[in-house]
């Protein structure tokens, strides 16, 4: 997972966001396995939201006729997920990380494109808050969602 947080232009920023969305979709597989009932449903709906962003990005970026970053068969997780606590921790991290890529798209986009990036950043931040609450992490919010720490 390349971590380029100062993309040169909108295309680069959105390609980076697409790679982050691929990785998020992948991560929700091992996350969901460790959760039950309501949390698993929340994980499914989060994954569906990331798939929707991915599809929109693929459509948009291939319309420009350029090269698309490729999805991979697997992504290295930052730590092995073996229980519910680890799954919730990874879910928080995935949302924070994906949000950071969308935030990086804000300075190099404008108009409707920037609105879409902002909506994506906001959705990631809200989901991270929900996962922190599920994990009983306090506070459940951060002051500057998406800002590199």
């Amino acid at each position: 997972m390349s971590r380029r947080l100062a993309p040169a232009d909108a295309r680069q920023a959105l390609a980076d966001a697409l790679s982050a969305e691929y990785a998020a979709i992948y991560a929700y597989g091992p996350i969901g396995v460790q959760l039950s009932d309501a949390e698993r449903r929340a994980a499914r709906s989060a994954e569906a939201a990331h798939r929707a962003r991915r599809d929109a990005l693929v459509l948009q970026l291939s319309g420009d006729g350029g090269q698309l970053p490729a999805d991979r068969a697997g992504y290295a997780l930052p730590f092995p997920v073996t229980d519910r606590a680890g799954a919730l921790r990874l879910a928080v991290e995935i949302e924070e990380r994906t949000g950071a890529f969308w935030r990086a798209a804000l300075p190099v986009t404008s108009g409707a494109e920037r609105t879409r990036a902002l909506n994506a950043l906001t959705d990631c931040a809200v989901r991270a808050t929900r996962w922190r609450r599920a994990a009983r992490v306090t506070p459940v919010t951060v002051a500057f969602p998406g800002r590199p720490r």
Partner: protein
Amino acid sequence: MLRAGALLAVGGSTGPLAGCDLFDGDEPAPPPDPLESLADESRELAARHRAAIAADPSLADWLAPIAEAHAAHATEIRRLIGRPEPSGATPTGTTPTATPGDRAALLAALREAEQRGRQSAAKACVAAPGERAALLGSVAAARATHVEALA
């Protein structure tokens, strides 16, 4: 600058006099930065949360981090526009107060304020030049997470 700021901060307390002042004044005020009102809004949101804590101290653990986030937003926005925070009075000239007793009503009012704040920050983010967009995006997203955290 103070006069223009007061005019911008849409409080009921400013009234038409501030407008007269602005047009009759002999010292031309520098044009207000469009983000000054957003910084003021952050300060006002921080004050609202602090007032809720004063009304119901059992909310402190929950609301204090949110109040701190708003204060940090105000500082960062002012740093971005190169205008330091005016010391002293709250920007709208009114200090928010909260009535003790009805916890649910306190929280509902805060949620509503955060929701409005989210919309104004999102608008500012989309309208801003690129170099301002990332900070404003974080402010808008943070306010959205506050709505969630208060649910």
